[in-house]
């Protein structure tokens, strides 16, 4: 209760603000409608109710978005392109694949950087530079080039090729937090812990597996939580520019083409639920790993 209460207060405040904003933003169109129908002196209560229930509102209200999400997830078969579950699954597949690839890449780079001074000096600036390029500018290039290589040179069918091109963007965004976090994590053992292994004449791989790797676990999970959300953003961005027909990004784009604002907001809502579930999943794995590593219960 004590934890739920503050969350509830913020939620109610946000909803109130949302409904208030919807009145203002939808008012011009509503006045237009009244003007064309020749209606005058509409009671304020009626006016507010009408702004909250337009067909194509500038600002859809929470209950409209909730109804749209309900309709598009529960009332449509999940294998139909009109189902948001179908689109969420398409986006999730690319996110998961890209997250896996990006995390492995990030961990691998961190291992190289920590163990080799030349790598540290040469790789780290490029890793940072890679993230200064706006992903919106890069995504179409990667998707188009990747798709052509996968389908043309490698002869992969179009659906897996699309998935892999999007996963590359996810990996591109998620390897960065993992690499940076893991460099810090693998360097986190205290000098005294390293000295101890030195007195045992431990080999470098023993230092890695018995000290550096377990020391880096808290950093790894912090990075993975950032990385998994970045992966989702990458997958959605990868669906925007390519005329993709499936995925939450494609759904967002289609909604904006046809001024289906409620559809856009519903896709956004599903995307944020997906993000929350992904972070929660990483958090669950973290909890299990911590328990196995004997961490003091928080």
């Amino acid at each position, binding site marked *: 209760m004590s934890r739920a209460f503050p969350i509830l207060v913020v939620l109610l405040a946000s909803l109130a603000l949302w409904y208030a904003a919807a009145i203002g933003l939808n008012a011009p169109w509503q006045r237009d409608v009244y003007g064309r129908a020749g209606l005058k002196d509409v009671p304020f209560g009626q006016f507010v109710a009408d702004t909250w229930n337009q067909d194509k509102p500038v600002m859809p209200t929470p209950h409209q978005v909730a109804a749209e999400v309900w309709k598009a997830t529960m009332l449509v078969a999940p294998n139909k392109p009109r189902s948001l579950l179908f689109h969420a699954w398409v986006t999730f597949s690319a996110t998961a694949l890209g997250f896996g690839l990006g995390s492995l890449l990030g961990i691998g780079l961190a291992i190289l950087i920590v163990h080799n001074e030349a790598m540290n000096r040469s790789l780290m600036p490029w890793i940072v530079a890679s993230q200064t390029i706006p992903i919106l500018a890069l995504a179409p290039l990667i998707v188009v080039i990747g798709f052509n290589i996968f389908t043309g040179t490698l002869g992969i069918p179009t659906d897996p090729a699309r998935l892999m091109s999007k996963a590359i963007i996810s990996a591109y965004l998620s390897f960065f937090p993992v690499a940076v976090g893991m460099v810090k994590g693998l360097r986190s053992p205290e000098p*005294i*812990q390293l000295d*101890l292994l030195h*007195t*045992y*004449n*431990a080999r470098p791989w023993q230092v890695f597996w018995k*000290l550096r790797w377990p020391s880096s676990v808290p950093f790894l999970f912090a990075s993975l939580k950032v990385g998994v959300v970045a992966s989702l953003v990458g997958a959605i961005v990868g669906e925007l520019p390519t005329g993709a027909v499936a995925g939450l990004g494609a759904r967002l784009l289609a909604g904006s083409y046809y001024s289906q604002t409620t559809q856009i907001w519903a896709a956004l809502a599903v995307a944020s639920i997906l993000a929350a579930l992904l972070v929660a999943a990483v958090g669950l794995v973290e909890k299990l790993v911590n328990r196995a590593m*004997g961490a003091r219960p928080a």
Partner: protein
Amino acid sequence: MSVVSAEHLSLTFKTNDGDVLALSDVTLDIEKGEFVSFIGPSGCGKTTFLRTIADLEQPSSGTLRVNGQTPEAARKARAYGYVFQAPALYPWRSIEKNVALPLEIMGYPAAEQAERIARTLDLVNLSGFEKKFPWQLSGGMQQRASIARALAFDADLLLMDEPFGALDEIVRDHLNSELLKLWATTGKTICFVTHSIPEAVYLSTRIVVMSPRPGRVADIIESKLPRDRPLDIRESPQFLEIAARVREGLRAGHSYDEEAV
């Protein structure tokens, strides 16, 4: 053959403020089975000397032999166990797994690991705590676990760097008498760094008094106390006499410090 043999050993640290002479012309022989304490104010090089024996620091000049070998060769032969100021237990390992760490690295078979863990944990009175994690143990018990870890493999030399410095006096007294028992049963050679005069006198067969800037040996005091030492030996005239001499040696080193300033 001496276990540790230092001749004109010097060590200079290069820092941004210029060179610091941490050890200056230290000559010392430590025989098998001795318990040698190194005592002195901070900056006197006692820890540096211990770390040099352990091949954790490199001497600038002079020679140092451990079991007749270079420190590096001795380290690679796993000639010594090192107990640090902090327990340095790995928090993700249970107590038995922490003691197993050197055994895993040195490649002992599983059955022998289990046998050695049981034996050394018994030696430091930690039987029954095998499955606990470090945070579940008190500071004194953690340090005992780290001593068990240093005893788990067959090194005849035990290097201890202020192992009880962070513990309260009651726990420290208790661990001191346990350490003496351990020394009697194992027959190991022990080098023990401390800044406590009673601790040094109570434990040692020989006390090396060191003084700072530059770190050097100010005095070496042989203890004629019997090997079997109950805690109340610290009230005996013999004990107090040795303690007085240690204190005098420390004071001499300190006045040098004041002249230099």
